[in-house]
């Protein structure tokens, strides 16, 4: 469950480039670790996010966790469906469960490749 057309962070977010903009979400591994999600707090369109800084939070039945920005950028759009249906992230973390659309302003070099992320997941699973 690690799509090879995405980039990843060490904190289990993914980023998908689509021309000038990019979609951001959390990985299948992350949603599996969190369990059933109950609430997702996202930044607002117009907000600026900064790589590695907290941009929102996720509550599951177990705990509350932070979501970190994968790169610097501006928030263009948020997935409003998640407000009433946070379980979309559990069901389809790379599709219907996307979190925000951004316009990246920083470079993407620090993000992990699918292969690097696979290694990270493997090391965290051990």
């Amino acid at each position: 469950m690690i799509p090879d057309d995405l980039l990843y962070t060490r904190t289990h977010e993914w980023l998908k480039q689509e021309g000038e903009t990019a979609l951001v979400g959390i990985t299948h591994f992350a949603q599996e670790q969190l369990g059933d999600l109950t609430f997702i707090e996202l930044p607002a369109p117009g907000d600026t996010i900064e790589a590695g800084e907290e941009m929102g939070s996720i509550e599951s039945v177990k705990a509350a966790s932070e979501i970190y920005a994968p790169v610097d950028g501006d928030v263009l759009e948020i997935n409003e469906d998640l407000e009433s249906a946070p379980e979309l992230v559990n069901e389809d973390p790379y599709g219907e469960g996307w979190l925000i659309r951004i316009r990246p302003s920083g470079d993407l070099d620090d993000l992990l490749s699918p292969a690097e992320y696979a290694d990270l997941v493997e090391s965290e699973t051990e």
Partner: protein
Amino acid sequence: MPYIPHTPDQVRRMLDVVGVDSMSALFADIPASMRPKSFDLPEGLSEDAVLTRLSEIAAMNETGKASFLGAGFYDHFQPRAVRALISRSEFYTAYTPYQAEASQGTLQAIFEFQTAVCRLFDMDCANASVYDGGTAIFEACMMAVRKTRRTKIVMDEALSPIYRRMLSTMTLSLDIETVIVPHASGASDKAAISAAIDKDTAAVVVQNPNFFGVVDDFSDVAATAREHKALTIMSAYPVLASVLKSPGSMGADIVVGEGQSLGLPLSFGGPYLGIMTCTKEMVRQLPGRIAGRTEDKEGRTGYVLTLQAREQHIRRAKATSNICSNQALCALMAHIQMCLLGPEGLRRQAVLSMELARYAQARLTAVRGVDLLNDAPYGNEFAITLPRPADEVVAALAEQGVAAGFPLGRYYEGLDNALLVATTDKNTPEQVDRLAAGLKDAL
């Protein structure tokens, strides 16, 4: 918990373990300048002597006065059963119901309290309470600031000055701008309040009845707030909420109140009870504990603290509020009061209080020189104007065993001659007659 003093021998042994030779060596890290020079405590007394002394002090209280003091705190009747029930040790000693399997009774009581106040205010959700009505307003403002990401609060000057003072203290070092909209002879200036709401406004804060006792319908203010995507916070008087148009139907987003009127005694400053309710959309911003009802896998009803990810024991830095204690026993007292009275009893308390206020208004304004401050509709409290400073009149009437009311000049400039008079179901027409006669003598 008993008080267990340490014997000199125990102290010696503890000091030995720590490895210092005296108590003063133990506290050597505290600079001498910061240590108390003296505790200035009298010599100890025997238990019997202490009881005698306390009785003497208690006897200095002046009780049994006919009281027309309101101003946010009201002396309604409390059935004797309330005290008996809250004194049960299961309720009296239980503190933190985090361990749901051991706390079902406490959790059920909290859930029922929440349900009762939601019905009273016509709102979706409630928490297990906060310290008092003023704290509830502060927390409500913080909810609005978080939700709207705006920092301007529009506030009616007819909101309790006590609450306004608390709010300005609590927000002193926060990035909050408060706009106070002046009252109009004790009535809330709704047009001016609405006009003050703009795109930067997080919330508008109103009170019903307002501090002057005036009852209003704030639907238009709430609608204006909604147009500007601002929230409406209303502070409501729980007993009168049983008969007035509900805050929920006026379109309020957050409704708070001082729960003292629900059977809590007036005991010189508390403990009081902050009621907080909100719409479903706001529930994740609601601070404090929230008890929920659910079913276990065998279909049995169970109660549990819910939405705890907002709370400080899950995310300290990100917690919605760092108030962790509610006023559990006070909330339970209010809940038992509501259960014993029932909706009918609560309405009866409200109606009796309001009817007596009308009698009082007629009697008092019949005294030469006494007028109503305004002709706005009121509940169980109204403001009158006197031909001389209200402070002096109150002092004169106190001599005759009557607490005549609250002098408005203490909080409102230019209203030195205005007196706020409240009646409850505990007052009698005879007391009102005494007040009227005393007023006539004093003027």
